[in-house]
């Protein structure tokens, strides 16, 4: 439930962004984060970006997340 998944913002359309989550494209809300732009990395929780993170952190978390999704 509290799991948050790292994703890269591909395209922003208003409050909705197309993101790349470990190779999968999804739509996510960016209403809860400010100053995000295309190319930024964010943590996604239940379809909402909740925090901006840097690329290195995102890559570490993607590895961890892949392990968790057994």
């Amino acid at each position, binding site marked *: *439930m509290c799991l948050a998944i790292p994703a890269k913002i591909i395209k922003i359309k208003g409050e909705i962004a197309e993101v790349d989550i470990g190779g999968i494209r999804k739509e996510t809300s960016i209403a809860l984060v400010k100053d995000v732009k295309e190319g930024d990395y964010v*943590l996604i929780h239940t379809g909402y970006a909740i925090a901006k993170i840097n690329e290195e952190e995102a890559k570490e978390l993607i590895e*961890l997340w892949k392990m968790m999704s057994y």
Partner: protein
Amino acid sequence: MENDELLIQFRNREIIGKIIRKIREESKNLGRIKIMHVCGTHEWTITHFGIRSLLPENIEVIAGPGCPVCVTPASEIDALAELSLRNNVIITTFGDIFRVPGVKTSLIEAKSMGGDIRIVYSMLESIEIAKKENKKIVHFSIGFETTAPTTAIEILKGPPKNFSVFVTHKLIPPAMEFLLKTGPRIDGFICPGHVSTIIGVRPYRKIAEKYKKPMCIAGFEPLDVIIGILNIIEQIKEGTYYVYNEYSRAVKEEGNIIALDTLDKVFDIKDSWWRGIGLIENSGLKLKKEYEEYDAIKIFDINIKPIDHMPEGCRCGDVLKGIISPNECPLFGKICNPNHPIGPCMVSFEGSCSIAYKYGKNIT
């Protein structure tokens, strides 16, 4: 790329070895130390990477009530199950709670009895369903501070008139405080990384100071968690009790201001029942009066009886309070397993029993 990642992992291993040695050294004369974390993902990291088996004998890391599905009262599950059987209602819910038993029934059983219950990944999906359907859509809004802002932002935006929420959001810091006041001794806390991206550092600081307990906000890499453990041990040794933000890559001092502001606008704080734990002061959220039109509890005049219920023989309450570890429950692995779960902690993939069963070879 692959080589880089291998190298990073290898380096981590070397650093992990060093930190573990330091933990051993620093904790030598400290007696028994109990460190609690309150996050399903931390429990996964600790169990999956066998972190407990690396620690000296006197250092115990226990899981607290870090699984929102596990602490959602059984009577609320019953209420939603009942509501789903009305013919003009559709319930939307996250998948984790679908199989969790209530007192009388689970949502999956209600569905098999004809209840219209749909699993969604996000509030956005529930709202899309509301736009397409004529029936009344009730979203089961569970989760801690990480999830509550997603409910709040949609309420603030004004969802369709046939949409409402059954709010059972809970707050982590009051639960930590409750356990410090009432539970067995806890010497320090590893604070949850994702909840902290929302609430920031300050709420923990008050508790750390009031109860003189060291705390560390940690990320989810094995390295993050053991750095957290080392920090808490060092603080205990030095007699300090501050909040160390090890996860500053994602957690800011002030948290997520937009999310906090949204929460403030939409919710009031109330006392809340935690399954297996009891009534915790100021630990839950309810919609403010001005958003009553979206409050399923008001719309359907739902009366929830405050009873604490666990299936017979299930010791989830003690697991959630950190009194026992999952394998101390007599039913663990015998009649209770992820394919045949008895209690909520085995149903949810974030529940300690489920994690211990799937990855727990290294449980001490």
